[in-house]
């Protein structure tokens, strides 16, 4: 799994590729919290286009990112979800809690 950050206007986009599971989900959590808490970015968009699979520990990292963004008054959005990622959020009844967009343009639109 690889994760990298890039700046687009006022947002930070975190591009993730590979599968997110128990072996690497702490890296996702760390990257999210660094942008949201440490850097104070006002909008963080997680690009999951390159993620075919995400497990419950990955979902937990997303929930931590969501909670951190709510605490700091920033926005945390997701885009490019695979069927599998969408299903695991749905089965966890978390899909409606997240701002989910189809693509990057929508995710960073004002």
């Amino acid at each position, binding site marked *: 799994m690889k994760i990298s950050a890039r700046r687009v206007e006022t947002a930070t986009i975190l591009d993730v590729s590979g*599968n997110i*599971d*128990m*072996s690497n989900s702490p890296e996702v959590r760390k990257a999210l919290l660094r942008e949201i808490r440490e850097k104070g970015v006002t909008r963080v968009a997680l690009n999951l286009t390159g993620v075919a*699979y995400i*497990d*419950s*520990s990955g*979902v*937990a*990292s997303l*929930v*931590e990112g*969501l*909670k951190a963004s709510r605490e700091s008054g920033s926005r945390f959005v997701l885009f490019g979800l695979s*069927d*599998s990622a969408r*299903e*695991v959020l749905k*089965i*966890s*009844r*978390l899909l409606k*809690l997240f701002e989910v967009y189809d693509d990057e343009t929508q995710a960073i639109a004002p």
Partner: protein
Amino acid sequence: MNPIAAKQPRDMNKSSKVTRAFLLKLELRSHPTLLCVIRGALQPLVEMLGFSAEHNREIIRAVDEAVANIMRHSYQGRLDQPIEVYCNRLQRRTNGEIEQGVEVLLFDCGPAVDTTKLEARPLDEVRPGGLGLHIIRGSMDTVQYKRAGRLNRLRLVKYARTSKGECGSAEEKPS
């Protein structure tokens, strides 16, 4: 830690846990980097058994979460402990129609599971963690835990064409 270099695990074969031939048997250590290996091995198997793409994902997700739970809870993060996964085809006849299914058995040598703690947490509470069991139960038709001698055994079953709750209402047998 390199799982290949891990010390040999305790012998799980001392217990005659499985007496019939299985389509697939995996032996692995409790190292999280091996989760992708399990998913990769299961993918072609469930495709071969004729499940839909959505059911494939559910089966793989359930097994992945179950193995991750063994690593996290039964072995408490130790990386070199033994886990065995067996997969087999099931068939059952319901209303004159044959349904294809898959049975997955998972064994570990951890301490006996406190079954009172096998309840999935309420999902109305938004917090990280505790979702694995809910995902397993939501993905499979049957989830059964049993202490088998010194081993923990988790049995997961899913049928290709069935509605939730019907499992067990018809005769099932390995095919």
